């Protein structure tokens, strides 16, 4: 995270950055750049990373499936489609994140509604509903891109590729209540999720209310993912890979791995963002693109190397 404060489009000496941090009220370019641009960007990157990593850990734990990522809930696809349609309709740029957030949450609700069975949700139906709706919304995005042509499509593509450019304290504060609500639900779900790792049969036998746990997890994942999407667009791989690394480090206890996923996500995304800003400066590489370049080889190395444990889940 600290690296993010020292890297950016304007060349600032480390001493100037530290000076600006120590004296928030001081005038000057360094102070303005650090407090108005770099610090909020690092804070947003950390929140996005933590939110996606926790969502991924929650859903992987609930579905006992290591290949699940937060976008399974349909949040990203719904948000992407709504953003594309908003741009087509000529909605002012300031409203776009809110539209993305609302559409993301709405899609998650629809996916959960389609997947419900008995008092809770059925894992297979959830995955099927998530994949189907995502495919439908991707088609809507493609259609919108065709309609917008090359120029207008850039705004949509910036969302789809994930980016933290020109986000500030205002956006962070606007999403904070929802992210906080998602965090509370995640904290409440963790002990039940911990029992659920032994399978729904044992979880039920030891007294877990499976339906309540599922709704808590889905609610938390939807709120956290929608907040992340509203802040940074579609940032892939964090929600898939970080939970794996967290489980490797602290084991399968849901409580420990959720905390570890949050911390790792909060460290990983600012680091990736600092790289995205500096590798080809002054051009910024889209964050989602950079994460895919880092994330995919890491994932493949962790699980496909011949000497490593290749098991992702189960015994």
């Amino acid at each position: 995270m600290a690296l993010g404060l020292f890297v950016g489009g304007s060349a600032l000496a480390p001493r100037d950055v530290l000076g600006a941090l120590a004296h928030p009220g001081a005038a000057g370019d360094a102070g303005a750049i650090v407090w108005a641009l770099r610090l909020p960007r690092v804070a947003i990157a950390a929140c996005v990373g933590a939110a996606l990593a926790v969502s991924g850990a929650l859903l992987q734990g609930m579905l006992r499936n290591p290949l699940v990522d937060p976008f399974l809930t349909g949040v990203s696809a719904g948000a992407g489609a709504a953003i594309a349609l908003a741009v087509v309709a000529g909605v002012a740029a300031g409203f776009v994140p809110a539209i993305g957030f609302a559409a993301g949450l709405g899609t998650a609700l629809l996916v959960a509604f389609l997947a419900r069975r008995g008092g809770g949700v059925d894992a297979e139906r959830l995955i099927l509903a998530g994949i189907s709706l995502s495919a439908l919304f991707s088609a809507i995005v493609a259609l919108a891109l065709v309609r917008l042509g090359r120029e207008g499509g850039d705004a949509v593509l910036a969302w789809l590729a994930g980016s933290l450019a020109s986000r500030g304290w205002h956006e962070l504060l606007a999403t904070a209540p929802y992210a906080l609500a998602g965090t509370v639900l995640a904290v409440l779900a963790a002990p039940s999720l911990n029992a659920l790792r032994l399978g729904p049969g044992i979880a039920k036998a030891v007294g877990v209310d499976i339906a309540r746990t599922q709704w808590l997890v889905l609610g938390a994942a939807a709120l956290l993912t929608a907040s992340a999407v509203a802040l940074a667009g579609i940032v892939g791989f964090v929600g898939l890979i970080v939970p794996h690394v967290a489980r490797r480090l602290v084991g399968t206890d849901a409580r420990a791995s959720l905390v570890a996923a949050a911390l790792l996500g909060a460290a990983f995304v600012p680091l990736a963002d600092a790289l995205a800003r500096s590798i080809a400066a002054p051009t910024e590489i889209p964050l989602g693109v950079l994460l895919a370049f880092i994330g995919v080889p890491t994932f493949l190395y962790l699980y496909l190397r011949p000497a490593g444990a290749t098991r992702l889940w189960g015994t």
Partner: protein
Amino acid sequence: MGHVTLRGLRLTAGARRLLDGVSFDALPGELIAIVGPNGAGKTTLLRTIAGFVPPARGDVLLDGVAVEALGTRARARAVTLIGSDAEAPHGTAVREVVATGRFAYRPWWDWSSSDDDAAIVESALECVGLADCAERAFDSLSSGERQRAWLALALAQNARLVLLDEPTSHLDPRYALDMLRLMRGLARDGTTAFVVLHDLNEAAAIADRVAVLGDGTLLAFAPPAEALAPDVLRRAFGVAFERVTVAGVTRVFPLAAG
């Protein structure tokens, strides 16, 4: 405590009727073996007794209270069911698996675990002979040791009724005997236990009474020598059996057809 009463149970799977007219009483500290052909409804009967699925008709009473009427956590403190599909994710420590049995003794949102819980988990591990394996990964255990770990989870849960679904399947004779001995010990300590077994001779060796399911109903509920009668078994399994008594223990053997 641990008196189980089944009254006029009818169990269904979708539209299909699995079992009908199942009634019996199991006394506290009794070890009941449930046997029957594949698809007879043994697992569904266990799940119904555990309160996981409501019966289509009839009642399951535990110490006079309908199991269905108990809340999730109150039920988990009274009855537990270890299914044959239980598994732990790669790398989970044996102690963590067993400690899960304490879930219903804390508020469901509580992240902490008490010293009392730790002591109970320790004693459950000792009871099944896994104290030395507590920190090992569950998936590094042999099949027999895994079954013992699941039993330790049930012990940690401190329920007065323990239901076990095929705990000796896939076990070699030594581990199977080991499990049977542990189940016997459980009953001796006053816990009522229902065990689904495929091996009729295991049922004969350890059970106080045997429930034979078949033909859509409860064919017999009696001590092994009586319940495992050749005519009952022929009706249940559709093949002829021979019954012998060796050193006071009933043994049954299926006879080759024809």
